[in-house]
């Protein structure tokens, strides 16, 4: 569920033109909403209210129906990725080693929920399943950097490294 306002929408006219093209192409097909949403997410990286509004107006589908689909499928995101995307492994090995607490701590410090992005666009947070580093459990990644054998009290210092 959306818990707070996120990064301001910065969609360009080019992106909009591209989306309108996709809609025009797919509009009359049965079940066009899913492919349109997939393409829209490719274009914008996520599906904020501004994008869903365009789709709603153009396809004459109530925005609630679109939002219902977007929040149902894990593949769709309402939030952009931050400059640094944090991914916490909640796979079995990491989870039993306490990655749930790591995930909670990150949400607490960043004041965002899973799948969301901080208002300054710096950090986004998501949960993932096994990344194949069970020996290092619990594990999280910040963009390409991997952090293993984590404890909750390390989190603050790790975040401080990213400008």
């Amino acid at each position: 569920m959306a818990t707070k306002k996120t990064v301001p929408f910065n969609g360009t006219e080019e992106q909009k033109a591209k989306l309108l093209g996709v809609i025009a192409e797919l509009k009359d097909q049965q079940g066009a909403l899913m492919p349109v949403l997939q393409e829209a997410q490719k274009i914008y990286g996520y599906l904020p209210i501004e994008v869903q509004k365009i789709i709603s107006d153009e396809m004459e589908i109530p925005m609630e129906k679109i939002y219902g689909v977007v929040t149902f499928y894990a593949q769709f995101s309402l939030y952009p990725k931050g400059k640094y995307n944090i991914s916490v492994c909640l796979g079995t090995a990491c989870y039993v080693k306490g990655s749930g607490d790591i995930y909670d701590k990150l949400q607490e410090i960043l004041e965002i929920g899973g799948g969301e992005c901080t208002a300054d666009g710096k950090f986004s947070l998501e949960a993932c399943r096994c990344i194949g580093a069970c020996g290092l459990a619990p594990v999280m990644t910040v963009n390409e950097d991997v952090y293993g054998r984590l404890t909750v009290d390390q989190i603050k210092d790790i975040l401080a490294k990213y400008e």
Partner: protein
Amino acid sequence: MADINVKINGIAVSVPKGTTVLEAAHKAGVDIPTFCYMKEINEIGACRICMVEINEGRGFRMVAACVYPINYDNTEIRTNSPKVLDSRRKTLELILSTHDRKCLSCVRSGNCELQALCNEMGIEDETVYEGEKPSYEVDDSAVHMWRDNNKCILCRRCTAVCAKWQGVGVIGANERGFKTNIGSAFEMGLGDTSCVSCGQCIAVCPVGALSEKDYVDDVFKALADENKTVIVQTAPAVRAAIGEEFGFEIGTNTEGKMAAALRRLGFDKVFDTDWAADLTIMEEATEFVERFTKGGTLPLITSCSPGWVKYCEHYFPDMTENLSSCKSPHQMQGAVIKTYWAEKNGIDPKDIVVVSIMPCTAKKFEITRPDECGAGVPDVDYVLTTRELARMIRRAGLKFASLPDEDFDNPLGLSSGAGDIFGATGGVMEAALRTAYCWLSGNNEEVVEFHEVRGTDGIKRSTVNINGTEIKVAVASGLANARTLLKRVQSGEEKVDFIEIMACPGGCVNGGGQPQQPASVRNFLDLRSERAKALYGEDAAKTLRLSHLNKDVQALYDEYLEKPGSHKAHELLHTTYIKRTIN
């Protein structure tokens, strides 16, 4: 197609091929409970409460009765075997595991489909699957209703009526699994969406998740205030349905007992909105003749239904000029009570409280609109739904069924049969046509019935020829039907002069504020036509059947307003509209 022989719990019935198990069982006199199922608009087989055992020749297995078609001869069905009852009970227990079980303080207590079924199924422990529960804030952002998702059982009837009957679709299922909840896009409050306030979602909700904002206590308080003159008026459709709350058969007109009950509740005057329906016809027919003969914006579209008006403002803002500028009847009545009647009786309008009893939740929104204050104070102070009036009657300890039949007070209680039928789809159109016919034909007292605009079809059309003048009319009820019609009018595919639109399918008799009937009744009986019969019956039995012959309406014009469409009539009885956006 040849019928198929089926045995339901050993009882032989024959049904057409393709009949659902639910319908076949109904034919055999067996009830199967349903939550999610609504014929034609929500056939999703999702709630699993209707599971039954079926044997199509290869042994018994479980299927959802509401959507499973019977296609084979000699099919056997068990609807009450231990396996079926066990499944039903487990499904109920699972629903209860996340349900806010505050039955004692729930508005639906005694009239809740979940509660009734738990009772029938002999649920002994509602906490058997106790665990984590979702917790939601009550959405009170809309003017007319509350949504308490803690009581929602996710049947999706509300979302089906909103999207499919009304073509609005501002509520739907968000998220998935345990987090699934009914809400609006981006967690907007209902009041921030383009919800039209029709209340159909409330009327079909099986539990206490959706309810109108209740003003019963406020009205009791006003009645107890000795400095206030408290006046009540009742819409046509209320008398056709309130009896259902007190054990009367569906479609019974209990007008007399309703008037008696209102008097015993302590209202100083018991007036009838049907009177203002006659007044509306005078204004609206005048407006139509004016536009039709002088080249004004056509088609003229009726404005009695505030759900429709709000829909027009959100979804067809370019057509607000087509809306009749007439206020809806209860607003007109309120304006007349606080001016004409107040002056006649020497009462300051500020000391008058007007309470409208309506089959409608959108009227609760309507009284908050700008430009609905004919006397400089709100025309109407409180709108109570039919259901709220029933609550008042029960709370006051009145034995409704044994009350005598009483009349309305006059002068604002007299109505023609034309005013009475305002509560059914096509009724406003017929009332207007009756008067227009008299005016244009010169035969002032001839009653002509217009049967083509009656009935529950979503869109009805007729061409009326009055003394060589052809008038094309159309009637739509249910906003999805209205949308279909208006799109055709906008594109020029269809030319119409006068349109009646009511937001609720079947018109006000099936309004969002009417008594809630459970799925076991709704799915097998057409509430729209049964309740409408009560109004057409009242009309047929009356001598006065033409709005323009209502002597008390005539007196209002003679003594106060001069003539229909006059400057003063416009000040009091007409309103303005707003162009809104879709959210």
